[in-house]
């Protein structure tokens, strides 16, 4: 059994064993066919491949044998080799569901979810009850930003399999992605919109940044005094910050609001009526209004919450712990996140993806020794990734062992040359080891990450050390400019940070 990326289970179960036996072929081929069948049944996919290749060569017209070969290649992890064979099968048998599913699975495994969608959609169309196909399709849709389609597939899956935690997690994440997407679109279309301010306030509440949330809710009310839910949200902020009396005042204001005009504000009415599925759908216009995007985000958030609530009612699962870990990370509680990833791993030991998440969480928690241990253990046991190498390398740099960190950082960059954080870390490591000239190109490459001026500072020192005084002055001036801008921003934020009584 293998796990698809979207959490669905892939079960390629059909082998075309009997094809040869039923034909008048040589006894040798029949024997080989049987041998291959037995190897496949025993899970020895690698060993079956050369036999199937021989059989296909001998009987090139036998689509069944070609499918068996593709299956063996796919099951042995040779995805790229399996794909042309699956495609060849599908040319002859366009509706062969096992070939469609396996082709989709191979594309997913290769990190090509976009190309996986077409065969999986065909598989689902041909066999709507096939949970594996639909699950993989939902996952591929998620990965390609087709969140609404993903949600639709997950919703269908949860209706037939309500006790599968993976599906509720997928459903919740797809709705959450819809909400996030709506917020992003709103920001792009009107960054000063009071609707955007209300959504931003909601995210601040989730992060427990109540002062900031208060500011943004107040900003919303300046322009939309009758928007339903804002006074109630302010009341929530007041309660969370210990101002119960002020909370009651805001709640009274919420109750006193006139009912929404459902002809002009249909989405609002749908949301207030609890018709979240309807409210989460955007009107089919080229450019949705800020109001429409706002209510879509609100409704999708609500639907995500409902899905996650259902997930929480199921027995403990990897997905539940994953969700909790992600929430903790979002709320800047890295130790909680570590705890949850550890719990997930207790359920599914040795899962490399979970181990990588744990390593990253330990790193975020500043427990660099533990992050290093986890990352190196996973690197030894599983396929190396740029992220794991970065965690190991940067942890070592932070533990003041730059010479040991460098090989990992170089490996991270070899795997992902665009991982600028690895360049930044490698630059620092080289500087610490006195290899300033080598450090400079890495620091220069990483400058795009420099939001606090630290990389410009490092670069200025490096230029200084190598005699490039003019460049050093320029870099130091840039460092000071970033500090100045950050200070201005900080002062602006400070002005937002007062919780005052209701107006």
């Amino acid at each position, binding site marked *: 059994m293998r796990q698809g990326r979207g959490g669905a289970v892939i079960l390629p179960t059909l082998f075309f064993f009997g094809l040869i036996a039923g034909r008048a072929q040589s006894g040798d081929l029949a024997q080989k066919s049987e041998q291959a069948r037995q190897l496949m049944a025993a899970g020895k996919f690698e060993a079956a491949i050369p036999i199937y290749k021989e059989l296909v060569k001998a009987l090139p017209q036998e689509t069944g044998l070609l499918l068996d070969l593709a299956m063996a290649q796919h099951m042995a992890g040779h995805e790229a080799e399996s794909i042309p064979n699956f495609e060849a099968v599908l040319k002859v048998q366009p509706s062969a569901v096992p070939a469609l599913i396996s082709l989709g699975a191979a594309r997913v495994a290769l990190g090509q979810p976009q190309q996986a969608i077409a065969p999986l959609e065909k598989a689902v169309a041909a066999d709507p009850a096939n949970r594996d196909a639909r699950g993989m399709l939902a996952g591929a849709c998620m990965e390609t930003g087709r969140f609404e389609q993903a949600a639709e597939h997950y919703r269908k899956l949860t209706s037939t399999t309500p006790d599968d935690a993976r599906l509720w997690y997928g459903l919740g994440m797809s709705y959450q992605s819809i909400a996030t997407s709506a917020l992003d679109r709103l920001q792009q279309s009107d960054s000063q919109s009071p609707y955007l301010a209300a959504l931003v306030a909601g995210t601040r509440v989730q992060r427990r940044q109540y002062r900031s949330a208060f500011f943004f809710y107040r900003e919303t009310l300046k322009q939309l005094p009758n928007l339903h839910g804002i006074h109630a949200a302010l009341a929530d902020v007041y309660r969370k910050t*210990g101002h119960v009396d002020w909370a009651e005042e805001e709640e009274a204001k919420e109750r006193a609001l006139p009912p929404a005009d459902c002809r002009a504000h249909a989405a609002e009415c749908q949301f207030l009526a609890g018709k979240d599925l309807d409210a989460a759908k955007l009107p089919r216009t080229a450019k949705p209004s800020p109001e429409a995007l706002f209510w879509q985000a609100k409704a999708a958030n609500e639907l995500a919450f409902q899905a996650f609530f259902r997930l929480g009612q199921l027995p403990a699962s990897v997905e539940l712990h994953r969700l909790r870990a992600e929430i903790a990370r979002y709320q800047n509680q890295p130790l909680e996140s570590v705890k949850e990833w550890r719990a997930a791993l207790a359920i599914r030991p040795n899962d490399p993806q979970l181990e990588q998440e744990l390593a990253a969480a330990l790193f975020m*928690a500043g427990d660099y020794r533990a992050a290093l241990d986890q990352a190196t253990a996973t690197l030894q046991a599983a396929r190396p990734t740029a992220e794991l190498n970065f965690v190991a390398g940067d942890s070592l740099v932070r533990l003041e062992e*730059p010479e040991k960190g460098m090989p990992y950082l170089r490996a991270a960059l070899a795997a992902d040359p665009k991982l600028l954080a690895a360049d930044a870390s490698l630059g620092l490591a080289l500087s610490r080891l006195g290899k300033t000239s080598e450090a400079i190109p890495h620091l220069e490459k990483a400058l795009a990450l420099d939001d606090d001026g630290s990389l410009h500072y*490092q670069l200025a020192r490096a230029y200084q050390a190598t005699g490039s005084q003019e460049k050093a002055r320029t870099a130091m001036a840039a460092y000071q400019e970033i500090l100045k801008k950050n200070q201005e921003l*900080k002062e602006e934020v400070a002005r937002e940070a007062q919780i005052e009584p209701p107006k």
Partner: protein
Amino acid sequence: MKPPAYFVACAAVTLALLAAGIVGNAAAPASAIRFREIAAQAGISFVLENHPTPEKHLIETIPGGVAVLDYDGDGRPDIYFANGADIPSLEKSSPKYWNRLYRNEGNWKFRDVTEEAGVAGAGYSMGVAAADYDNDGRPDLFVAGVNRNTLYHNLGNGRFEDVTAKAGIRSGEWAVAAGWFDYDRDGNLDLWVVHYAKWSPSFDRYCGDATRGVRIYCHPKYFEGLASTLYRNRGDGTFEDVTARAGLARYVGRGMSLGFADYDQDGYPDVFVTNDNMPNFLFHNKGDGTFEEVALAAGTSLRDDGKPISSMGTEFKDYDNDGLPDIVVTALAGETFPVFRNRGKGSFVDATYASRMGPASVKHSGWGLGLFDFNNDGWKDLFTANSHVNDRVEAFEAATYREANAVFANEGGTFRDVSAEAGLAAVKAHRGAAFADFDGDGRIDAVVSALGEPAELWQNVSPEAGHWIVLRLQGVKDNRDGIGARIRIGSQVNEMTTTVGYASSADSGVHFGLGKLTTIPKIEIRWPGGAVQTLTGVAADQVLTVKQGK
């Protein structure tokens, strides 16, 4: 052991022809450093009462300065602890909040003389700075505090007088640390007061996680910093605030501590000020009564990664025996205890990694520190008083709140953590630390304060410590304490200062470890005014008082 009798060094040529350069030059393996904790049996029962509140007022976690001074002139170093107060009144509403003076009665016995000396203090005290500001031969005391500073004049009869107002010392801001130095070289000690930030008891930001009911001390970023204050000593018992005139008023930081040294060897003492989560300051003394802030150009404002850290205490001394004062800073776990090595010509390099202090300190959070030669091998070791700032840190980060102190042996310019074998096992919320040879055996001991728990007195019992000398300077033209004088023995250089570590003070002369050297071929003293005095053929293992020009 009482110090030897007054000794005026003669300039006679000695035949003890040990090469002057051997002291501190060779990177021999460090001999063992050992301490044992004896506060209770020595009669020290001081508890740093910081008055922790559910509101988590930031001042609660910052205090704890300690001073060592020989207030009664008997040659034995005494101890003074700064203490907290009630919050929000900021009054010492109970004797438990008194600052405490312990008289060293010899043989590791101390007696609480706070009341009779009149130094119980007022307000929420933070740091202490001891020095003889009026050149009368008796160390005086400045106590920095939250909105209330106090200057005590030592009357010489075992009592002190509060002369704060008379001397023109202001209060009203949150002062954490202070130090005495003679910035204008007029022979009178001036006072530098380091301020943290604007704060009042009405500050009520909730930091932490309200839904879990976990309230923590707010991050420093929520507090608007303050400039230091420089008081010029007029020499008549009064001071004038010359902060603006000296060009210091515009340098706003969240100051924690300070150190003095003439880093560029131009004859004028410079000032390094640590800032909490802000770049540090290095004030270059221009010699005309003004300072210029040069930390960024000099390379001491930030670590090599360019990120501000929680700089706490500092020592401004030469750790690698190249004759130039370097800078060591304590900070929080994950930030290391940075080492800035002085390369000469006004330039420093981050040597935290190169000195091996980085890997040795990265897991520690430190406050007080002292760069002293604890095993007398000719290389200054580092003692740090450790604890995180946030008592709830374990709920949020992979860090520890209460920690044992640490000692890092200097092995020829690189450091090694030898805390475990040194016996520093007591786990507390340590804060200030001061250092002195309390029993006159030539080995530097330590006294450490801890929030809400008894202070510690660490007797240095290092078994194979080398020879040593302590120089007690007596300025005549220069300030009487000789503060700012630079003393060279072989490749070792120390400057006379009472300012040490975090918000603390230590007035017990200038200590040198000598290794196997029993006679010192040459001691060179450059007094603050520039006069050079040379002593030759000086016997080791003594406290040597040196009078200027004699």
